[in-house]
């Protein structure tokens, strides 16, 4: 049997074991949605890191650095620094004042129904975009890695079914441990690969960076070029490159703290202090990982070279191909299995954040006015919606097909999180005057501005030469109206403005009256949700 396949199956077996174990401990809403709030700080830290180090980071970032050098490394930087916003501003107030979702904090002093409905819409939107990107990636990857033994559709369906099983039976507890398992594997793989790269250069940084300074490849015109890959500007070229870079930075710095699947993690720990420690644990892991993308990305550029990668599966295959070149097929299989595990775990996390918001915010609080009509109804609805979310994601990924250009979906998820979610969370915690109209208009404007600007950005609008066919063609064949790939620089201010103007146009004394309560609760942890006792 194929080694890659054996390793995939091994990971699946382990995770199904975890799910079975977790299923016996997932009765009740606190247990199902928040793992009983009993996850330890370091465990949650590893899980947060695992959530964040998606296939986009592991495969994508190695690929971008391998092809565009230094500019790719800038993604790595932003992804870590973003956690300072989570640590300093969001994690503790959210843990103190909320229960299962970010909308809990918003609903505190605002009118719960309109606010939850909008917050749920934005949560489900972010999670679905992110998920589809992962699913399409998974399908294409598995097909490539298993060398045609399995089709794209089969790969998408199996990823979809597995994620439904994790979430339906194991809830947050299973999702957390699947995430931890995968994060440890991913770190181990990355460390090994980095050591192998350095061994290739006789453990001499001088020799390594010397090679990075002279990467030889053929450009789009077929000319042989030698480039210094440490030099900026290979990806972000004038006139709009620098602005795009700043816009990307804004989306990362403010978007991470608004990603629903990251925020739900802080409800799985006993208190705000543990939430804080889990962010620090996550930052240590995430930072080390992204520093090592230096070795993965530049290693791929120097050891195997962009030309080789291009003809052997493309950008996203840089890390696995590097592993193969350095240590042969078994290591290739190991790295591939890790990439697959990464996708599965992240997709499960996205599913649970979407279904939690659907059942807790929309079903219980909006449709049934905050009353759970029957004990266990909320969990039941979440389980059913996991099926629906899974089925919809499978269907969309199959319709889009393996060659679809989906990288923009992740950018979109960050942009929506930064432009819609973050402004209203921040304003509801810090601004006494803030009210329901402001929250609803902030969420709506942020959501529409980011989706609208991406629709008319170069990611979706461009004139392709006739040689580009099928799903790889841009959706709209015309010159882009908005010159940047990342809408953050406009959509984030738009989200804040929407929230502020909406607030100023209406009066809501009740919201101001309850501000002190939220202020005290979020800053002291008075009355915060506790861990279920043994």
């Amino acid at each position, binding site marked *: 049997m194929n080694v890659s396949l054996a390793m995939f199956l091994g990971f699946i077996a382990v995770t199904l074991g975890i799910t079975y174990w977790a*299923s*016996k*401990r*997932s*009765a*009740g809403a*606190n*247990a199902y949605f928040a793992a*009983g709030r009993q996850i330890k700080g370091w465990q949650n830290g590893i899980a947060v890191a695992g959530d964040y180090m998606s296939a986009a980071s592991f495969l994508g970032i190695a690929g971008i650095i391998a092809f565009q050098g*230094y500019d790719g*490394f*800038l993604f*790595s*930087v932003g992804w*870590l*620094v973003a*956690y*300072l*916003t989570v*640590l*300093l501003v969001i994690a503790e107030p959210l843990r103190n004042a909320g229960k299962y979702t970010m909308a809990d904090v918003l609903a505190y002093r605002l009118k719960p129904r309109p606010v939850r409905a909008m917050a749920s819409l934005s949560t489900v939107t972010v999670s679905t975009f992110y998920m589809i990107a992962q699913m399409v990636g998974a399908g294409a990857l598995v097909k490539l890695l298993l060398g045609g033994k399995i089709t794209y559709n089969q790969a998408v369906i199996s990823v979809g079914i597995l994620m439904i099983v994790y979430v339906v039976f194991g809830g947050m507890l299973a999702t957390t441990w699947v995430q931890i398992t995968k994060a440890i594997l991913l770190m181990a793989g990355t460390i090994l690969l980095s050591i192998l790269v350095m061994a290739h250069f006789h453990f001499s*940084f*001088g020799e390594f*960076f010397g090679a*990075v*300074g002279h990467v030889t490849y053929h450009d789009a015109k077929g000319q042989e070029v030698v480039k*210094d890959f*440490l*030099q*900026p500007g290979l990806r*972000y070229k004038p006139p709009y*490159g*620098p*602005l795009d*870079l*700043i816009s*990307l*930075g804004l989306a990362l*710095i403010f978007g991470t703290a608004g990603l629903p699947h990251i925020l739900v993690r802080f409800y799985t720990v006993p208190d705000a*202090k543990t939430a*804080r420690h889990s*962010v*620090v644990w996550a*930052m*240590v892991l995430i*930072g080390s990982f*992204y*520093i090592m993308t230096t070795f993965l990305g530049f290693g791929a550029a120097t050891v195997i070279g962009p030309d080789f990668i291009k003809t052997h599966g493309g950008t996203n295959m840089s890390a696995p191909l590097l592993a193969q070149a350095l240590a042969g097929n078994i290591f290739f299989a190991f790295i591939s299995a890790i990439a697959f595990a990464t996708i599965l775990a992240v997709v499960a996390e996205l599913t649970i954040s979407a279904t939690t918001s659907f059942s807790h915010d929309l079903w219980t609080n909006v449709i049934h006015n905050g009353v759970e009509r029957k004990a266990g109804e909320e969990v039941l609805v979440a389980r059913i919606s996991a099926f629906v979310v899974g089925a919809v994601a499978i269907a969309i990924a199959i319709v889009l097909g393996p060659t679809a250009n989906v990288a923009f979906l992740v950018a979109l998820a960050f942009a929506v999180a930064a432009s819609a979610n973050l402004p209203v969370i921040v304003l509801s915690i810090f601004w006494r005057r803030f009210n329901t109209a402001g929250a609803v208009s902030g969420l709506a404007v942020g959501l529409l501005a980011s989706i609208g600007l991406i629709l008319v950005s170069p990611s979706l609008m461009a004139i392709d030469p006739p040689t580009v066919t099928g799903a790889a063609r841009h959706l709209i064949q015309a010159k882009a109206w908005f010159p940047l790939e990342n809408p953050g620089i406009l959509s984030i201010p738009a989200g804040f403005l929407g929230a502020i103007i909406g607030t100023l146009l209406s009066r809501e004394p009740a919201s101001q009256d*309850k501000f*002190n*309560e939220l202020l*005290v609760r979020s*800053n*002291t942890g*008075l*009355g915060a*949700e*506790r861990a*279920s006792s*043994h």
Partner: protein
Amino acid sequence: MGSAAPNAEVAQPKRYETSRANWDEIAESKPFKDLMATKKIFIVPAFVFFVVYYFALPVLVGYAPQFMSTKVLGQLNLAYLFALSQFFMAWIIAGLYVRAAGNFDRLANDILQKAEKSEGGK
């Protein structure tokens, strides 16, 4: 799933509730104002510092690529070293925050205990 596990849903202790007047009183009290001031003194400068430090990177790299390409350490240029320094900046601020937050916890704990005691007394 089916069978209920022994340590499943344990009834949550009833959430702390009190009147609006009491919330206002806590919010206006000296210990709480001290807590907020202590937090602000650390968090606001730390936030401003990291945002400025971080955005200096895309701004410099984007608008002064030639300058940032200056080699300072063998092959390593300013651009790479500045990017690398961001990781350490983030770790240092996180470490300082955890230290400062020990103080926040202490102040918050005093408020918590007082509030929970006065509730118990009623």
